[in-house]
């Protein structure tokens, strides 16, 4: 069903076959944050431990924690780190450490309690804070992947470190470990250190930059969570009476069996003897009262992706069919937010953004916002869902805000949309097209006369899912956000949109 792969969807651009990866590679400084997990990874990962999964997929881009020690690849896994795939994949820089295989002491500074011998670093009751380390060209605000192996573990703990800047978690067992560290602030020493009188052996130390600007969240409660659930019901094999929350939207109920499902609350009606019923609910609580035999039951928004199976078994909220159901990160509309610390978009003053989104609430929620608050900062942009018009796309030049909306589309709406912003000219209103494509949604252009332009895009943080990381939380799933610092062509945009659409299970 998703055999082309998430980044493999092709289109014809300028007479050649183009892929999203080739388009990203064409435009230097591109970013691609993919919050989905491909069906093949989910299937393979179901029987793997996190360590086994990382061994099988070393360049997987989603991690449960902000330091990227544990991959996120199954339903209910939180997403604390999304690595940028600015060329269509995770790209590592050159090896930063010398003699990481520890074949000798060359290149390493060795503290008391440590010794390098027989091709490894041996710690023998190494005092707290002691380490083996070396100076490397760590750069500020970049992220580095540390990998190393612990063997012959006896006691205590150790951790990877950028001195006086960032430390990895304590490690107190044999194994091969991965951690992503950044926030280097001019201290150029990296190594592995003892935390609590460590006794064990370290080997195969590697430190490589992970190219790009990565989205992360340190606070566990504020991390979006991977979900592949589309059927709103529970215990669907043999349905019993239950209630669900609906929005003012169209839904489709299906089941087999000779029984009856009577709907009350936000919609009044019934489905007798199986089959399907498409109905329009109001917002609130819908109760499904079951009599007789009702099996293989499924309730989902009527505009759900078309290329997913018609029935999803759901036993509990965490136990459901995943085969054929795209797994993507869901923001909870309470406090979830990922932050890309710094993007410098002043070089071109142009951006194209393509996003695959399913909004799940009518409350206002920021999908993304460049800077902590576009209303207070010149050279910004953003997009939010909610209210009567969604999405609302904003851009601010030197003047006040310019904004536009697509035709009102209430949640829940799976959607692929694209927008281009251009601050490179003196005035921009007529030269900034906005493509919003989702089948029937027409292209529109910025209206109004309030953005006089004349500014530069900023170098600032990009917030995904909340304003400034604290207000207007977005409720819904995000398949991916692609940001290219250029006005790409309409045909190139279409290729990216098609790829995202395919990953979402085809929403148009």
């Amino acid at each position, binding site marked *: 069903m998703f055999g082309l792969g998430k980044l493999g969807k092709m289109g014809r651009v300028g007479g050649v076959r183009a892929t999203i990866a080739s388009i990203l590679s064409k435009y230097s400084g591109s970013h691609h944050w993919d919050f989905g997990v491909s069906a093949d990874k989910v299937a393979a990962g179901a029987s793997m431990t996190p360590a086994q999964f990382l061994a099988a997929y070393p360049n997987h881009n989603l991690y*449960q*924690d*902000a330091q990227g020690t*544990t991959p996120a690849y199954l339903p*209910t896994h*939180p997403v604390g780190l999304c690595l940028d795939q600015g060329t269509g994949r995770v790209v590592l820089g050159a090896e930063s450490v010398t003699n990481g295989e520890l074949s000798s002491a060359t290149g390493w500074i060795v503290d008391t309690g440590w010794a390098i011998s027989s091709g490894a670093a041996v710690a023998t009751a190494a005092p707290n804070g002691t380490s083996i380390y070396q100076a490397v060209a760590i750069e500020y605000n970049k992220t580095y992947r540390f990998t190393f192996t612990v063997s012959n573990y006896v006691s205590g703990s150790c951790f990877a470190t950028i001195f006086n800047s960032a430390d990895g978690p304590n490690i107190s067992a044999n194994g091969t470990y991965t951690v992503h560290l950044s926030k280097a602030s001019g201290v150029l020493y990296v190594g592995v250190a003892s935390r609590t009188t460590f006794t064990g052996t370290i080997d195969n130390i590697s430190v490589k930059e992970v190219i790009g600007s990565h989205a992360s969240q*340190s*606070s*566990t*409660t*504020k*991390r979006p*969570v991977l979900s592949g659930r589309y059927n709103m019901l529970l215990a669907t094999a043999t349905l019993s009476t239950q209630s669900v*929350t609906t929005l003012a939207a169209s839904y489709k109920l299906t089941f087999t069996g000779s029984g009856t499902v009577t709907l009350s609350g936000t919609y009044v009606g019934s489905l007798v003897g199986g089959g399907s019923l498409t109905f329009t609910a109001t917002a609130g609580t819908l109760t499904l009262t079951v009599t007789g035999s009702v099996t293989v039951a499924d309730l989902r928004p009527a505009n759900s992706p078309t290329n997913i199976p018609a029935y999803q078994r759901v036993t*509990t*909220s*965490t136990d459901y069919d995943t085969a054929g159901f795209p797994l993507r990160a869901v923001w*909870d*509309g*309470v*406090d*979830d937010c990922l932050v890309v610390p710094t993007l410098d978009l002043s070089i071109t003053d142009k951006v194209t953004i393509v996003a695959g989104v399913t909004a799940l609430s009518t409350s*206002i929620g920021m999908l993304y916002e460049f800077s902590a608050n576009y*209303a207070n900062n010149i050279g910004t942009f953003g997009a*939010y869902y909610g209210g009567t018009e969604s999405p609302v796309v904003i851009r601010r030049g030197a003047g006040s805000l310019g904004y536009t909306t697509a035709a009102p589309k209430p949640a829940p709406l799976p959607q692929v949309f694209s927008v281009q912003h251009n601050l490179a000219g003196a005035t921009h209103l007529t030269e900034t097209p906005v493509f919003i494509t989702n089948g029937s949604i027409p292209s529109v252009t910025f209206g109004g006369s309030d953005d006089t332009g004349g500014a530069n895009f900023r170098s600032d943080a990009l917030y995904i899912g909340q*304003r400034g*990381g*604290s*207000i*207007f*939380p977005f409720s819904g799933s995000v398949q991916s956000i692609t940001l290219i610092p250029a006005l790409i062509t309409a045909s190139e945009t279409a290729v990216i949109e098609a790829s995202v659409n395919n990953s979402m299970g085809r929403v148009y």
Partner: protein
Amino acid sequence: MYTYLNLLVTAPATPLAQQLIEAVAGEAGKGTLSVPLVPVGSPPGTPATWYGASGAIGSELVQLLKDAQALAEAAGIDLSQAELLLSQSDVTEIDAEPWSSVLERLGLERQQEAL
């Protein structure tokens, strides 16, 4: 490794709760309880009466949210302080009670902000 919880704490108790969460969870606890909540129908500008969080909570913290004795020992505070803190908290599993239901039960809504 994680349990998915709604965690709400009264405003006066929130600073202490945040300190304890960060002390136990480290960096992963920073920024928890960031959602300001007010009684339903409060006018804009009403100070928050509760603060909330919803999402993944590490296993090391979950037990402390249910057991005053364990919380007191882990945080190095008196048992009475731990009991008082937990009495000022509302902890539910997301699966058992969605965030919206918790707010409805407690008569709370999110503090209004200007767009």
